[in-house]
Structure formats: C-alpha cells, structure tokens
C-alpha cells in the first residue's frame, strides 16, 4: 500500500501542471471554472502530499541513508556512455516539504479568489491567467521537492524562476507617477535577473559535480565513497571539489532565498499581487533555496571544517541582521514583511551553516506557515484599505484632501491605523502571526527560533559536529539575537502602526473586512502557526525523529537539540523588549500624522536604513553601470573599429569579384548555355507539341494502335510456335 502511494509521487507536480494546461488552453474564458480547476489541481496534490507525508513518517526508518528515499524512476536519457536517470523520490525531508508546500499553496489559492475580486465589477482582467500562473508555480515547487536529481531539480527551479517573473510582473501595465518607484514589470525583471546570477553559479556547481562523479542523482552523489572522493580530491591547491561544488551550489540558494548579496530582488518583488508574495516568500520560492542546501547537506559536510560551512553561516547570520535592520525603517507593510522574510531565511541558512540541520528545516516549516499568514493578512489589509479608498473616492468628503495631490498608496502603513476594529479577523490572525514571528512562547516561532539559537550556543560552548569552530557559533548567536530584537521591534511597529490607534486616512476608516474566502485561510493558517511549534519542542522533537538521520553521512550524527534555559530566557527577553520598545514609540502614543518619530531620533542612520544600506545604488554604480559601459565600449569597438571595416572590405571584395565573374564567365559561358538549352527546349517543344493534342480520343487511338502492334508482334514472333501458344491458352 505504501509502495503504491510512493509510486504515485509523479502525480503531485502533475496535478497543478494539468490545472495550468487546462486553464490556459480551455477554461480561461470562464473565471469560476478556472478557479475550480486550480483549486482541484492543488487540492489533489495536497491530499496526495499529506498521504505521502504520513506514510513517509511511518516508514522513516526505511527511508534514511544509506538507502535514501524511495525512488520513483521516470526515464533515462542516454548521455554517451552513461545514462542520466531522471526521477522522483520520497524521503522524510520530501515528506515534510509535502506537508507544508501544497497545504500553504492551497490556502493561498483559496485566498486568491477573494483577493482578485472574483464576482465583483473590479475583478482582475487577467483573473484566469493568474490562477494558471500560480498553478504552474505550485507545480514547480512540488516538482522540486520530489526530484531525486539535480537535472529535474534545476528544471523545476527554473520553472519557478519563470513563474516568479510572470507573477511579480503580473500587473505589468501598472506605472507610477513617481519615476523612482519600481514598477511591477521592472521588479519582475529584477527578480529574474538577480536570481539568474545564483542560478549560473549553481549550474556551474552541478556541472563540476557531474564531471567529477558522472552522475547527478542525489542518491549516488551522497554515497559515502563518492563523498569521500570529492572531499579528498582537490580542484586546486587545498580546495577540495566538495567545497567548491558546495559553495557554487550555495550560490543558487543565495539567489533564490534572497541572501546577501543577492537579496535586493525580494523587497521589490512586493510589486506583485499579495498572494504571489505569500507564495514566493513563504511557501515556495525562497524556501527552495533553503531546501536546496538542506537537500545537498551531505555535500556541505563532506569536508571536515571546510570553508563552505563558514561561508554559509556567515552569509546567513549577516543577512538575518542586515535585513532586520532595514525592516525597521520601511513604511510599506509588505516590504517590512519582505525584509523579515530575508531575515528569517538568514536564520535558516545560518543554522545550516552551523550544522543545525533539524533546526533549520523546523524553522523553514513553521516560518512558511506564519509568514504565509502574515503576507495574506497584509494582503487583506491592503485590499481593505483599497476598497476603503474606492469607497471614499466614490463619495468624496470635503475634509479629506491630501489623498488627491499625491498618489494614494494602499501599502503604506502611514495611511492605516486602527484597523483592528474595522477588520477583526484579519487583525487578530495577523497578531497571532506576529507573535509567532517574534518568537513569543508558545507560538511556533518560539520553538523553531529557539532551537536555532540553542544550537548556535551549543556550537559556541561545545563545538560543532562538522568541525565548525566555536567562534562561528558565538558570532552567529550574537547576530541572530540582535536580529531577534529588531524583529520584535519592527513587527511591533507594524502592528501598532496598522491596527492600533485611530485611522489616519479616510480610506482606513472605511476599510471593510475581507470576504470569507480570504479570512478563512487566515484563520486556518493562524491555527497552524499556533500549534505547529509543539511538534518540535526539545523534549519531544518529532522533527528530529523524522529528518534527524537525513544528514547522517560519513559516520557523523546530528546532535539532538536540547533545551537551554539560558538561551531561551535571553531570546524571550530580547523579543519582549523589542515589543516594549515598539510599544513605547508607536503604541503608547498613537501616531496622528504620517511621520515616523524614528526619523528624527535616528537621523542619518534612519535614511541609511530606509535606503536599504544603499545596496541598490551600490549595485547600480558597481555592476550595472560598468556593465552597460562595457557593453557600449564593446559595441563601439566591434562596430566602428574592427568588425565594420572587415565586413566592408569583404563586401567590396565580393562585389568586385562578382563584377569580374559576370564579365568573364557569366555572360559568355553560363548565359550562353542557359539560352542554348532554352532554345533547344523551345524548338523541341514546338516539334513535340504536335503530338500533345489534349484530345483524349487521340491518345486512346494511339493506345489502341499500340496494343494492336504489340499483339501483331507477339503473333508474328510466335508464328513458328503457334500451336504451343494455343496449347498454353487452352490449357
């Protein structure tokens, strides 16, 4: 029975893909049908996904290395002397992802119906297309988590890249009065190109792996002897192949999971519809990067104390801190969440860099739920404010003036306030999500984040399993704890600015609660954000039981995360103080005008943070401008100095040659021959024409005469043997 369901794995990505095809090809005229097709597609994937999750949990003992996951081979591509075996697999890590991905996707799909204004007059004109895209997106993520090799993984990875481009730029016709503000079209392009850098690195890593091992299947690469070979053979100097490949593959994760220095695309990706933000930044795309590292973890730990883990840990921790600082100074409700996402992903990456495999995956799962909740909640808020704005726009009141001279931004928290009364369901679920995010006991974030911090502390005090030095442990712990403080602060700021106090605009005052198809997913996700952490408590860590053995290669075991009262205390204290500071600044005395008090207090630092550490400007100056300049230079060189003259010369020579040929060869010889043939043909035609009367009866007469002649010839030829012929006829 288990076997049977495992062999159905290939269906999981197929369901959303079929939904995509159906919508694009047939149902796109009918919005309701498209909605249902998408829902059914992801719903079936969800049912099958959970089935596989529970089955894989039950069969966990047989799905651990060295046997690896249950293979579901699809087909083989002959590549010269070897076969490239492509297929899917199920193991506990896949099962865990199948627990999270399709369910969160389903919630987002359901939410999308309301968000895209189904059944209202302002329904999105590309409504069906939206569902097609998100179905394809879900297909990409589901395919990615069930892949058992780098090839299919990369394919689905790129499918997601394509979908992120399409979805971030979904409102590609939108433009803003402010020329500096990034438009959805540009944002999509930015996301695509930025992640492309990581993808290129990852592809390089994959190719190197293939050149070294001759295979791209996880199962075969992660065999002990293969890993050992990789760890002990050197690319150059003292750099083993394993380290090089791991760092390159990590490049892909950096791009997809928006880690420093490729994090710049993610905040701008907020230009897409909010369900897309939830989909990209919670359930699917950014998780894919972390999943990639988790999936290829054996490669990362192949070399004892290698550079690769240090790189991972540093980038993760630094990103977590960097993003949380930027989030403090953002006013766009979704951008705050975006930076929060980057920061939380940094946590996971850092945890992986310390070898805290279980903690990272645990946080990945819990984070997906509460971040989806937060994004959908913010979408609900934006939606409400937009409708409130429309409401006031249709009934303009005399007292309200400032909405008209500048563009109204429904995403701006400064335009909100006091929404808890207007949108109770959204508000309370959002607050639950915020508590989970900031790591308040007993919500999910507390347990997962605490486990990461505890692991970091343990590395600092006891040393890591994979040769991670103690110093890294402390560095990571410090940065993550600081980030936790900032997280609590900006989350509190967000809550107080959005939901507390009094409405600062007419739009916020008239914002209605969202439709049930939007609020129900919020409630369900809130429930999960509350209880999910209880499955990962240090005393009964189900996650450890499930995936703890996944990373056990080269004879090493992953330590069981233990409860550390000191760390837990510190982090709780930090989180509470973050909330407290936020309350002191924004909650105690609610804002009445849209000016952040922090701006005055921090001065230049605020601007520094507000402008995201000037990363965009830096990249503009360091990379994009030089690249464009280089391209110009190449173009000039190409066109004006080298290529053009050569082309001209070749052209002139050709012309001269052809002139000469024409005079010397063509006119006398070829033309003469052609004309001669023509004349002969014409003459022959005139001659033969007489026989071609076009009269069928003429032809028939000729045929009859011919038959007669043949008959006569036959008779004459056999005259001597006439009797023989007769005998033949009669016999």
């Amino acid at each position, binding site marked *: 029975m288990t076997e049977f369901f495992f062999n159905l794995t290939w269906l999981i990505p197929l369901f959303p893909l079929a939904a995509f095809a159906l919508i694009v090809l047939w149902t796109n005229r009918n919005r309701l049908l498209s909605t249902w097709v998408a829902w059914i597609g992801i719903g079936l994937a969800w049912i099958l996904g959970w089935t596989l999750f529970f089955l894989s949990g039950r069969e966990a003992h047989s799905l651990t290395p060295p046997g690896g996951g249950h293979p579901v081979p699809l087909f083989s591509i002959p590549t010269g002397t070897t076969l490239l075996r492509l297929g899917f697999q199920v193991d506990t890590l896949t099962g865990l992802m199948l627990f999270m991905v399709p369910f969160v996707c389903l919630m987002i799909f359901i939410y999308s119906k309301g968000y895209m204004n189904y059944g209202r007059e302002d329904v999105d004109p590309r409504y069906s297309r939206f569902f097609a895209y998100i179905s394809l997106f879900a297909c990409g993520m589901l395919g990615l988590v069930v892949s058992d090799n780098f090839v299919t993984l990369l394919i689905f990875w790129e499918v997601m890249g394509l979908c992120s481009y399409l979805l971030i730029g979904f409102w590609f016709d939108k433009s803003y009065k402010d020329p500096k503000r990034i438009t959805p079209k540009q944002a999509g392009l930015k996301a695509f190109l930025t992640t492309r850098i990581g993808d290129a690195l990852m592809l390089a890593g994959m190719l190197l792996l293939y050149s070294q091992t001759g295979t791209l299947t996880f199962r075969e690469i992660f065999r002990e002897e293969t890993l050992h070979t990789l760890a002990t053979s050197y690319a150059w100097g003292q750099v083993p192949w394993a380290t090089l490949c791991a760092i390159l593959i990590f490049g892909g994760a950096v791009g997809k999971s928006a880690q420093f220095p490729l994090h710049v695309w993610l905040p701008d990706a907020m230009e897409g519809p909010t369900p897309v933000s939830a989909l990209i930044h919670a359930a699917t795309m950014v998780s894919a990067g972390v999943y990639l590292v988790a999936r290829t973890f054996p490669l990362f730990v192949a070399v004892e104390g290698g550079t690769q883990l240090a790189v991972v840990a540093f980038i993760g921790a630094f990103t977590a801190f960097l993003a949380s600082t930027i989030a403090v100074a953002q006013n766009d409700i979704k951008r705050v969440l975006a930076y929060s996402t980057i920061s939380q992903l940094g946590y996971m990456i850092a945890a992986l860099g310390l070898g805290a495999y279980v903690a990272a995956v645990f946080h990945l799962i819990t984070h997906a739920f509460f971040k989806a909740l937060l994004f959908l909640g913010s979408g609900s808020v934006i939606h409400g404010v937009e409708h409130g704005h429309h409401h006031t726009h249709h009934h303009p009141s005399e007292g309200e003036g400032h909405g008209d001279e500048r563009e109204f931004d429904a995403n701006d928290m400064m335009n909100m306030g006091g929404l808890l009364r207007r949108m109770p369901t959204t508000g309370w679920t959002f607050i639950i999500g915020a508590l989970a995010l900031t790591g308040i006991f007993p919500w999910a974030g507390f347990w997962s984040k605490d486990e990461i911090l505890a692991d970091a502390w343990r590395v600092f005090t006891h040393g890591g399993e994979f040769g991670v030095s103690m110093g890294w442990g402390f560095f990571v712990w410090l940065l993550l704890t600081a980030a936790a403080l900032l997280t609590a602060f900006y989350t509190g700021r967000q809550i107080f600015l959005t939901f507390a106090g009094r409405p600062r605009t007419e739009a916020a005052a008239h914002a209605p609660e969202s439709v049930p198809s939007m609020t129900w997913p919020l409630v369900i996700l809130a429930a999960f954000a509350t209880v999910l952490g209880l499955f990962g408590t240090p005393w009964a860590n189900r996650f450890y039981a499930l995936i703890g053995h996944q990373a056990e290669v080269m004879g090493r075991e992953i330590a069981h995360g233990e409860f550390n009262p000191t760390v837990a205390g510190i982090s709780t204290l930090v989180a509470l103080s973050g909330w407290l500071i936020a309350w002191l600044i924004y909650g105690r005395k609610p804002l009445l005008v849209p000016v952040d008090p922090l701006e005055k207090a921090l001065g230049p630092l605020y601007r520094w943070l507000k402008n995201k550490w000037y990363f965009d400007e830096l990249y503009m100056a360091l990379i994009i401008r030089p690249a464009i300049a280089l391209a110009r230079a190449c173009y000039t060189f190409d066109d004006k100095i080298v290529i053009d003259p050569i082309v001209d010369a070749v052209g002139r020579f050709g012309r001269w040659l052809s002139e000469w040929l024409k005079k010397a060869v063509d006119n006398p010889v070829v033309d003469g021959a052609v004309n001669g043939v023509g004349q002969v043909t014409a003459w022959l035609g005139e001659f033969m024409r007489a026989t071609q009367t*076009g*009269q069928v*009866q003429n032809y028939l*007469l000729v045929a*009859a005469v011919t038959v007669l002649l043949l008959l006569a010839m036959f008779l004459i030829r056999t005259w001597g043997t006439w009797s023989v012929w007769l005998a033949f006829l009669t016999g």
Partner: protein
Amino acid sequence: MQVPLSWYLIVAAALFCIGLYGVLSRRNAIAILMGVELMLNAVNVNLLAFWRYGEVARGTLAGQVFAIIVITVAAAEAAVGLALVIAVYRARRTVDVEEVELMKL
C-alpha cells in the same frame, strides 16, 4: 446442342470493337460514354460466358461477382460522367470534347 463458347466471345469482341469505334470517333461526350458502356457490356458478356463454360464446373462464382462489380462501376461512371457533362454543358453550352480545351495552351 449448346452454343459454343467462341460464339459468345466473338460477339463480345464485336461489341467491344464497335464500342471502341464509337469512343474513338465521336465528338459528343455522351456518345463517347455510350461507347464505353458498350465496351463494358462486351466485357460482361465475356465474364459470364467464361463463368458458364468454365467456372460452373468448379462451383465458383467469380465471373458473376466480377460482372456485378463491373455493372456497379459502370453505374458510378455513368453518374459521375453525366454529372460532368451537365456541368460542362451548363458552363460552356457544349459537350463536344474537342471544344472543352481550356487547359490546353
């Protein structure tokens, strides 16, 4: 006393040659069609004569079946041929095969 087989065959040959003459020398498409019908009839006479004088002893029926199929083909040919004649006549007011020569240069 039976009629010898060769009598039938000679009558059929005569019928065939007369039909051939009609096909070769007539100008009117309908007349040509009639000549073709005569030739087909000659063939049928042959088929049935051979059936009667050869096949009956063996108990097979190929001659009759073949004759039936020839008649079928003749009917189809007449239907299509006459339809063509009508179409040509309607378009060009003639059924003279020598005047229907638009395709000729």
